[in-house]
């Protein structure tokens, strides 16, 4: 029924009739259109927001406006500090816990592990009210630590690393022990290097999650000094502030640019990471 398949009989790909190609492309254009539209709006004067003209003058004014009307440099710094801190914290805490679950005889280990998995469902943002109270008792309100700390002991990280550590043969561990390594050295020299792909995958997922996180950072911060980009953007572009739309779209692009560029450059790694972290 399909002549094109005869050219490549063992191909995994199934050839698609023309109608479906059109549908696939149409859907793709609809899907990317909002982003392209934001680009258009950000690089043109605001009067061209809805009057599409191919040769409308290009401008960077919207970006300079956004940059001068809100402290985006500070927001960038805060987001960078937040994401770096969270990922480092998660790597350390989750590695230790995963190592314990994978290799140590802890009484009631399975029950404890199920308890950890609960956090896959009960996220810090679902408990905003009580977490806010706890954060304020610990003096963490309006600090970057306060935004990040509730996420450091991540069930997903513990789960993924434990799965990886369990696949590492004990012989390697024994060899290291004969060399005179203690437990922490074994962890650092045998387990961590062999789990690099898991760290990469989990790291990318975690970076994009915390770059984009909003409601908990919104609740726990109340000034420019600690607000990350998402909260800054939310405050800046709230409809009631009456900021010019072209400026809002420039600000939106400013806050998504680093992650978007990283994604476009390392698409495969991002997609693979989401897959790896998702199969749980």
């Amino acid at each position, binding site marked *: 029924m399909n002549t094109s398949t005869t050219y490549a009989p063992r191909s995994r790909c199934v050839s698609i009739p023309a109608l479906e190609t059109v549908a696939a492309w149409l*859907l793709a254009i609809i899907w990317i259109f*909002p982003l392209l539209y*934001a680009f258009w709006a950000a690089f043109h004067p605001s009067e061209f927001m809805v009057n599409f003209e191919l040769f409308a003058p290009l401008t960077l004014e919207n970006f300079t406006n956004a940059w001068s009307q809100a402290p985006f440099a500070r927001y960038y710094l805060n987001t960078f500090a937040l994401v770096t801190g969270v990922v480092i914290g998660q790597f350390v805490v989750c590695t230790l816990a995963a190592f314990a679950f994978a290799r140590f005889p802890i009484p009631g280990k399975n029950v404890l592990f199920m308890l950890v998995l609960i956090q896959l469902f009960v996220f810090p943002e679902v408990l905003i009210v009580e*977490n806010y109270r706890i954060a304020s008792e610990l003096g963490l309100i309006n600090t970057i630590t306060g935004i990040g700390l509730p996420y450091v002991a991540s069930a997903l990280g513990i789960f993924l690393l434990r799965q990886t550590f369990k696949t590492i043969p004990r012989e390697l561990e024994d060899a290291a022990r004969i060399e005179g390594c203690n437990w922490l050295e074994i962890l650092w020299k045998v387990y961590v290097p062999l789990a690099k792909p898991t760290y990469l995958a989990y790291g990318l997922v975690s970076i994009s999650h915390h770059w984009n996180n909003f409601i908990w950072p919104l609740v726990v911060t109340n000034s420019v000094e600690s607000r990350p980009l998402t909260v800054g953007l939310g405050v800046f572009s709230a409809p009631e502030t009456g900021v010019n739309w072209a400026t809002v779209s420039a600000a939106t692009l400013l806050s998504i640019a680093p992650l978007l560029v990283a994604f476009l450059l390392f698409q495969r790694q991002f997609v693979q990471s*989401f897959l790896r972290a998702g199969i749980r």
Partner: protein
Amino acid sequence: MSFTNHRKMQLYGALLLLPAAVLLTTFAYLPTVTTVINSLFLPGFRGAPTEFVGLENYQVLFDDPTFWKVARNNLIYAVGTIPTSIALALGMALFVNGKLRGRCFVRMAYFTPTILPMIAAANIWMFFYAPQIGLFNKLLGMLGFSGVNWLGDPSVALSSVIVMSVWKEAGFFMIFYLAALQSMPPELKEAADLEGTSRWSFFWRVTFPLLMPTTLFVLINALINSVRVVDHLFILTKGGPNNATNLLLYYVYENAFSFFDRTTAATITVVILLVLAVVATLKFTILDRRTHYQ
């Protein structure tokens, strides 16, 4: 291994678990327990001690029509987003898995919304939905129709929010279907071709059943997201007009941080926790029936 050595290992393991245990207790277990406790008490006036009221707060909550409206919204939101985004995700994956011109671009186009923060996505969609200068109404105007108040009309607003969420989520679910499709043995298709099976019945009889675990996995994730992600409401509607787009978690936020009613906030949080418990049970019984965490 000697007895004392075993003891030492246990101690060492416990020490390794300690940081995670302290953090999880502080930010997950303790707040869960205090939330449940708070939902059973009423705060005393002017420094008076709190008073145990049993299930009275729940009674008050269930007598509140706004709560039911919000719960109903959340249900409509879930029913509106989940099947649509799963169906679209599956369609996208089938498109991108086939031999398609410009496959890389198409796949990127589908997946890109996933990378954006919900806040940014909402900002972009504001340009479409805004009453006077929004793109949708401009287009309708060009075609001679009168504009729709996409976010201001209570009968349309929730649908507008749903459409945006579907756009944001479908590409994420696509990658899981794509991975599953790529791991399907090509012999199945070859055998079906030999038998002269139509593509339609091949999909419904072979592909779709084989994708069932993926569908369940995606479904669980979508269910969690439908009670967890409310970021877009902060930009698009703030739960309005007249609570027409309010969702449970946003209602918690409003109660706690706008109305300063921590008791009601705690009571609604318990409702959300119950929903999540149902989803978790679903996952651990249906999805993991064959997966064992050894």
